[in-house]
């Protein structure tokens, strides 16, 4: 039964895992080692993590704040819109959905350039965190809309709403009582995706940020270029500690939403 060719997929899988995992382990070790090039024998330390906190705490906090703000905005913009798109699956709705998905196809750099040119001269806006927020919302909004839309498209929303209407519920009531509760798995999956992506967003942010408003990934780029490897690694470690639980939660939530779809 165990033909050698049956081992190829296993080998490919293990190699791919090693490719992805090894540098992660290296960076975690480097961030905790006194001197990485002398190796683990130089001892383990949290010194670098402490230095990272000293240098970059504000970036980390800014990223968390931006991610939450981004979540709030994508919820307000995305959930009602996903509902409207789900209920009016006409051509115009398709075009709008396609249009807001452009940031998935158009590189972040180009979008940032576009934003800078249009709004760069409104200095109050340009220098506020809201400017970066706009970039993050642009990039994450399609994920929220699609995630909610996928769940709404999978349930028979029209009939559920008609059911509520025959029982006396008007449009707004139905949105609150029927649409939102039933879209929750999609909203949750979308929310986790938005937060995760916002915390990791670099391409737009690098162009949009000002020195006062460095986000976590901007700080990371900074540390890779100018800090010693142990600090860069420790910072990466901090990033992993933040992002990995989010990722795990995100995948759990998407799997859950997926189950509802089937």
């Amino acid at each position: 039964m165990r033909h050698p060719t049956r081992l190829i997929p296993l080998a490919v899988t293990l190699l791919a895992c090693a490719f992805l995992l090894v540098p992660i382990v290296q960076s975690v070790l480097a961030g905790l080692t006194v001197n990485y090039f002398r190796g683990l024998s130089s001892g383990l330390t949290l010194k670098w993590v402490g230095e990272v906190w000293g240098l970059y705490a504000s970036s980390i906090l800014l990223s968390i704040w931006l991610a939450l703000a981004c979540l709030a905005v994508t919820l307000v913009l995305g959930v009602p819109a996903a509902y409207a798109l789900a209920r009016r699956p006409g051509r115009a709705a398709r075009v709008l959905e396609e249009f807001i998905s452009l940031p998935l196809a158009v590189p972040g750099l180009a979008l940032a350039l576009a934003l800078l040119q249009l709004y760069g001269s409104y200095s109050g806006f340009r220098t506020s965190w809201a400017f970066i927020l706009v970039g993050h919302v642009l990039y994450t909004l399609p994920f929220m809309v699609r995630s909610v839309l996928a769940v709404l498209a999978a349930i028979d929303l029209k009939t559920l709403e008609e059911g509520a209407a025959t029982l006396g519920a008007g449009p707004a009531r139905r949105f609150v009582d029927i649409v939102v509760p039933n879209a929750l798995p999609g909203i949750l999956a979308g929310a986790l995706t938005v937060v995760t992506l916002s915390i990791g967003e670099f391409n737009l942010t690098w162009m949009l940020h000002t020195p006062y408003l460095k986000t976590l990934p901007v700080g990371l780029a900074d540390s890779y270029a100018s800090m010693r490897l142990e600090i860069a690694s420790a910072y990466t470690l901090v990033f992993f500690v933040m992002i990995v639980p989010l990722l795990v939660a995100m995948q759990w939530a998407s799997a859950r939403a997926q189950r509802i779809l089937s």
Partner: protein
Amino acid sequence: MTLSLSRVAKTFAGGTKALLPTDLTIAPGEILSLLGPSGCGKTTLLRIIAGLEQPDPGARVLFDGEEVTALPVERRRIGMVFQSYALFPNMSVRANIGYGLKMQGLARADIDARVDEVTALCQLQPYASRAVTALSGGQRQRVALARAIAPRPRVLLLDEPLSALDAALRGQLRDELALLLRSFGITAIFVTHDQDEAMAIADRVAVMRAGQVAQIGTPETLYRNPTSGFVARFVGGAMPLRGRVTGDHLHLPGGALRLRPGAAGQQVFVRAEDIRLDPEGPLAARVEAVTFLGTHYRLALSGAAPDLLTALHAGHSAPRPGEAVRLSIAPDALLSLPAEDHA
């Protein structure tokens, strides 16, 4: 409540005339079934009554004389049971049943009392606090019914409430539904494409075809006195006997049958239960297939008429496939109906 429709029609955006101008009156407490093949406009008619679809201009929908044609669905005070039940998956059984009462702004205590009452009526007490997703098909159907009647609607509308169930459950719930509907005592309209269901539940049946009501009447009337070949086929599965009529005889490939007088220019139909195996019968046929059905055998017969005929044969044994048999049909069992050009 008396429900009356006048000149209700519906043309969809694409130009489909789903419903041609229709008049209909339903007496208080009456249970009417809309029966017909797929696409004939049953759902459209029901949805217009509910207010979920706007009829073409000129239509009038009256609830006890009050015109509701322009009233949005949420203000019509109707109850509706959907084919898929459309139970709110985010609410418990109780919350589903109480939703319409909540929308009426009733006090918490009143809602609770009424929900208890309806839950009991529909025998749902053991499941009241469950999630609706944790119910069987039959239980869901009862919840849908309970939810629709809890706010005491003026009319109850049901769109194929049994068709989501599997065959075994369908038979059982059909009878349960019939009993419940009678116990509510409210006007109800019931859409189905299954004649057994229509017969079992309704006081009167409106047989629809291509956007029109072909015939309306009690089950017995439709079965015994169909006014068209379409109704004869659809109710009771009458088979056409395509042949030449001369005087009071119908000439078929397998022989000639005697007709009741006055059948000229008409089409002749017969039902499977009216075809008898009879060694002295006037028609010759060949047995193609035999199926044992317990009380009787179903025979597929060729040669007697241009099409294959089905006959039901009671008895402890049946001829074998390939055997030649003779058939007789009593003149009274032959339905002579106005000729129609299409099936």
